[in-house]
């Protein structure tokens, strides 16, 4: 048989290079930038806009001055360096006053305390966000520890202080290294135990920031112990709701009537404590974080109750919750702040008087509780109905079902929303300047500008503060987006 000798290709031809217009940078540009007339116009408009912004700002940024003692000196240096009439940024103000933007008027020798509180906050957050995950907890605690210690070293170099011949900064670094090292070890050995630190953190953070006698926070913590004990004793006979009520009443009695006597007595016997810092010395980002974090943390329990109240079958409870939430969400935050500064003293018993920061925190807590309630309501609504029915089928009562089945899931779904609320609140802390507190954006800037050497400075403080805000909020929003994606994956 004779094979017909048709042409059969034995091997594949080498693929041809695509035409120049279809490869490399040109293809990318064509497809991504000039795929249609409209797109081309948009591209050109975008590039021109970007160019104009850069053209306006670049010379000013390039003519930066970092070393000067006053705005006038800055102007002289710029004039000498870049010729008469040149304009430039005077970052010297940031170099000289950065600590006021971060800590306000917090005593300089105690800067390590807020820094430490800030670092420990992340350690306390780790088990909440990654409960029981040994690897992540250890990494997070470790990284936070290293960063905190580096920050402490930086601060002790910037503000060298000696107490009784000992380098105070070195001492602080040593203490921090011990505490943080211990916590990292806990995270490594028993990651679930780290949750106890989270529970303790509010007292630790409070003590680090305000200082004073150590018995104060311990006494307050004891109040919670009273609550738990009374609750456990009474819930058997009286049920959960009444038991909680009894616990709260007992704790309130402890806090309001007994605690100060006991702590006073303890303090006179054993005066342990550190330097007390008044809250009016707080300012800058320290203040923003204190208000933001405290308000969000304190508003969580309130927000949960409000969200449950809003979904309750009891008409009165529901009406009260809805009324509260809608009232708060209906008025601007500024009016709440002015209420704190102007009106609260009308509503409280005569002669009761506590400082403005605390009043602001209380009102901001109410404010954020209404928003958190809505976030959690969203989380509750997202739970499939089957979860509730399953809980009922197991014979769990309302609070058991909420505690064991509903809340753990709903809260997990709500974390991104809570983070967003926090970002919003954190940005809104800039408004406290309007009631005379030293927020970083306007409060501290006003103080800086009141100094004769920096009077007339305008852009630099705003840019500096804006950048810090951006860094904080951007990283948090990225984190919440990551969480959202992760949660979505989990649910599939």
């Amino acid at each position, binding site marked *: 048989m004779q094979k017909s000798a048709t042409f059969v290709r034995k091997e594949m031809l080498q693929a041809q290079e695509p035409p120049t217009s279809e490869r490399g940078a040109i293809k990318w540009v064509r497809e991504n930038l000039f795929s249609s007339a409209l797109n081309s116009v948009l591209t050109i408009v975008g590039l021109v806009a970007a160019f104009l912004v850069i053209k306006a700002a670049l010379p000013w940024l390039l003519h930066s001055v970092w070393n000067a003692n006053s705005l006038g000196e800055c102007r002289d240096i710029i004039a000498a360096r870049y010729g008469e009439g040149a304009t430039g940024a005077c970052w010297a103000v940031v170099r000289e006053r950065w600590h006021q933007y971060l800590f306000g008027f917090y005593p300089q020798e105690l800067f390590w305390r807020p820094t430490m509180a800030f670092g420990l906050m992340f350690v306390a957050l780790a088990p909440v966000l990654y409960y029981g995950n040994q690897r992540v907890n250890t990494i997070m605690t470790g990284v936070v520890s290293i960063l905190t210690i580096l920050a402490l070293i930086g601060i002790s170099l910037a503000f060298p202080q000696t107490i009784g011949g000992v380098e105070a900064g070195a001492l602080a670094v040593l203490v921090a290294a011990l505490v943080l090292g211990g916590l990292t070890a806990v995270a490594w050995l028993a990651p679930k135990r780290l949750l106890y630190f989270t529970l303790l953190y509010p007292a630790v953070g409070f003590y680090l920031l305000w200082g004073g006698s150590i018995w104060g926070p311990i006494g307050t913590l004891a*109040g*919670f112990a009273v609550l738990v004990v009374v609750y456990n004793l009474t819930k058997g006979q009286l049920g959960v709701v009444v038991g909680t009520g009894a616990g709260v009443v007992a704790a309130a009695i402890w806090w*309001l009537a007994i*605690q*100060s006597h006991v702590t006073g007595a303890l303090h006179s016997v054993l005066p342990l404590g550190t330097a007390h810092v008044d809250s009016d010395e707080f300012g800058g980002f320290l203040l923003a974080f204190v208000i933001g974090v405290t308000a969000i943390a304190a508003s969580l329990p309130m927000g949960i109750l409000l969200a449950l109240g809003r979904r309750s079958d009891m008409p009165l409870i529901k009406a009260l919750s809805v009324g509260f939430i809608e009232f708060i969400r209906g008025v601007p935050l500024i009016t709440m702040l002015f209420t704190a500064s102007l009106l609260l003293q009308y509503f409280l018993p005569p002669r009761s008087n506590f400082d403005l920061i605390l009043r602001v925190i209380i009102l901001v807590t109410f404010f954020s509780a209404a928003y958190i309630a809505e976030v959690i309501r969203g989380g509750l609504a997202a739970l499939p109905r089957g979860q509730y029915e399953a809980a009922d089928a197991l014979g769990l009562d309302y609070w058991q079902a909420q505690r064991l089945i509903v809340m753990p899931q709903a809260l997990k779904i709500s974390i991104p929303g809570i983070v967003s609320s926090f970002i919003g609140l954190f940005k809104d802390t800039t408004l406290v300047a309007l009631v005379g507190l030293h927020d970083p954006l306007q409060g501290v800037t*006003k103080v800086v500008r009141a100094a*004769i050497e920096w*009077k007339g400075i*305008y852009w630099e403080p705003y840019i500096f503060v804006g950048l810090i805000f951006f860094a904080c909020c951007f990283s948090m929003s990225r984190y919440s987006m990551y969480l959202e994606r992760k949660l979505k994956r989990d649910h599939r």
Partner: protein
Amino acid sequence: MNKTVLLGTLAASALLAGFASAGTLDDVKARGELICGVNTGLTGFGAPDANGNYQGFDVAVCKAVAAAVLGDPNKVKYVPTTGETRFTALASGEVDMLARNSTWTFSRDNDLKLDFVAVNYYDGQGFMVHKDLGVSSAKELDGATICIQTGTTTELNLADFFKANNIGYTPVTVADDSEAQRQYLAGACDSFTTDASGLAAVRATMPDAENHIILPEIISKEPLGPVVRHGDNNWGDVVRWSYYALVAAEEKGITQANIEEVAASTQDPEVKRILGLEGDLGAMMGLDKEWAKRAIAASGNYGEIFAATIGEGTSIGLARGLNALYTQGGLQYAPPFR
């Protein structure tokens, strides 16, 4: 930093609330600290420095009172107040006294239930314009755009002035004096009006101060002074006389530096009474003998304070003017100590 704080402090405050007390003077003594409402930041008059220590002309009054009452000029807690919150803070007892350029007016004295105990700075509202504008009198400002700081008496004065002269203007309200300075320099307003002292402070820090003039018209009386709550006369007396001690000290030539020397050598009976060497003036208002001596020693007499904070030697460069002693043609006049 969470519920514990709130509850703990609520508890503490509730307890504090339990101790009702007789008057502000006793409160301050019991507290060991004077709470003084000051400006959130006004160059020369009251602002914290890089270390957070409050300095300035108004602040010196707080220091004098603290020194007189508590014996230590540093036992003062400064509460920054805004134009809106200042009187409420005082009325609610949040602060013991205000030392923050507040104008003494009839309605504030009566309707707001405040007591202006003295005038530590006689001011008046003026106008600043750029030289190029070619204006030499405020009456030529017909149709001008005028930057005005909101939340003060100045906006009422401005409206009254233009109405009285039957000319028109466009108000541009600004939040504070650094904002006003920026807008004025950018040319967003033809003229900037505020208290003449504030104008001088703003002008002093301009890059081209020589191109700006302050118009001769002073369109209002702005007696600025420390304020206390209405009804607590004893405390009002303490603040008033602590201030007058500073004025009297200038008149008698007692300074921070020579006070001990004067006390040792003086033959003047009034100086003796002021410094507590003769009689017991302090006891009449519930203080000890050396109250005035400490008040003067805190940051010097009135003239020294003026010179150190806002006077011609500083970059603000205010002349004494109306605030010179009556012996030198001014209005500062302390009633006799006897």
